Structure formats: C-alpha cells, structure tokens
C-alpha cells in the first residue's frame, strides 16, 4: 500500500505511537496517508480507538508482519481527511 509519510514508532510504548502519529498528522496536509510501524501490541486497539474519536482521520488498514529480526510489528495506515 502506498503512503506519503512514515512514522517509525518501533520500540515505543503506549501512548507514544499515537502521540508521534498525531504530531505528524498536525503537520501533514489533508489527503496524505501516514504509515505507522509499531511494536506495541496495544497499538492495534489504540489506533482503532483513535480513528473512532478523531473525525479528521480514517484508519485504512492494519497489518501484522514480522520484521528482519523476527519481531512482530504492527502496521497502521491512516488517511488524514
């Protein structure tokens, strides 16, 4: 999936993946897609809640992958409306 901005939130714990994403969202113009990579397992539910509460964003897709070190990473695609 294509994206415009990458937020690397690996190694960060709650609530920092959301905080970092929000900081990027504030800077980004509308229509841009932000890809967030996180290692915090709670980020799956966190981003769903974030998208529910914030009317200016849309959660496009969530994926779970394994990175090169075999660690599980959680990837979120967010559209700024």
């Amino acid at each position, binding site marked *: 999936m294509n994206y415009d901005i990458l937020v690397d939130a690996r190694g960060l714990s709650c609530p920092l993946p959301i*905080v970092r994403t929000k*900081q990027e969202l504030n800077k980004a113009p509308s229509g841009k897609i932000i890809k967030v990579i996180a290692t915090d397992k709670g980020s799956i539910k966190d981003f769903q809640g974030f998208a529910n509460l914030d009317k200016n964003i849309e959660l496009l897709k969530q994926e779970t992958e394994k990175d090169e070190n075999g660690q599980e990473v959680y990837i979120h695609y967010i559209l700024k409306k």
Partner: protein
Amino acid sequence: MNNLGENSKVHTSTSGYSFTSNEELQEKIKNLEQELNDLKNQLSDIIQNKNKVAIVVFSGDIDRVLAAMIIATGAASFGKEVSLFFTFWGLNSIKVKRKLNNKNLNQKLFSILNPNNFSNLPVSKMNFFGLGAMMLKSMMKNKNVSGIEYLIKIGKELGIKYIACEMSKEVLGINDDELMEGVESGGVSYFLSHALNSAMTIFI
C-alpha cells in the same frame, strides 16, 4: 374593544389577507431562525465541552503520576483539550529543583523531606527508601515505557495546560522558580471553570 387585537388577528389569518399573513409568516420564520441559532450555539458549546479533559494530580508517586500523564498525553493526541491540576504532593511531579530560601522552618523541613525534583519521586507501594522506585524505573526502561519526565515534556508540546494549585504552593512554601517553566497558578475556581466544562474529570 379590548379583544380587538386578538380578534383581528384571527380574522386576517382565516380570511386569507395575504399581505398580513405574509408578515406573520415572516415574523414566525424570524423567531424560528432565532431559536435555531440559539440551539446551534448551545450544541456547539456542548460539543466543545465534550472536547475537554481535566485531571487533578494530588499524588506525587511515580506510578500514579505516570497513569495521569499517560491518560493526559493520550487524550491530548486524540485532540482533546487537557488541563492538569497539580496540588499538594502532586506539586513534586512538576518540581525541577529545591530551593530553601523564602521558607520558614517547617516549610524547609517539608522541602527537605520531599523529593528535590520530579526524577526522584517514590512509588506508592513497596518504595523501600527509593529502591522500589529504582526497580520500577529499570523495569519500565526494559519494556521501553517512557518516564514521566519525557511524558511531561511531550505533553507541553501537545498543548496540555499545567496548573499548580496556588493554595498548596503557599502552604508548602513552594516558590515558582522551583517548578518547571510554563506552569500556571490557579485556585479552585480556576479548576472548576475547567472541570465543569469537561467531559471527563479524574482525580489521581
């Protein structure tokens, strides 16, 4: 002739004098528009109030302050207006240095017995003279959980309002230069003006 006004009104509306009924209609529309505007204003007030979060930080324990800061930074990144009120022991969590000037004997003692800055807060349980806090911090570091210093700093960037309770500051003799920069001071009415307009108020 006293009822003439009312009678003539009925007469015109039933007999269909278009000129008068038009005026009446316009009057009614005007009133309705006015009411609609009032409702819109009330609604936007309600929506705005739903957008605020007020948290009282009474405790100066690292675990409790951490909980407060995580909720606060989370809510702020959800786009909420967050105000944090630090009172009593909570003032320790926005303290950057200890200064003993302008304090009486009791206040000096209090100051010495309390942590000198927010990096040295105790844990609410199993503190064991600071050993517990050290253990907790290293456990947090292992799990990449950010400390309160970082969360307080990032909270500032997110626009969280930090407010120190004026009264407890005076009782404990805490000077403004002991607290971190950008902290406002306020009393109960200042807090209530925030809390009463908030969707959520938490006391920690």
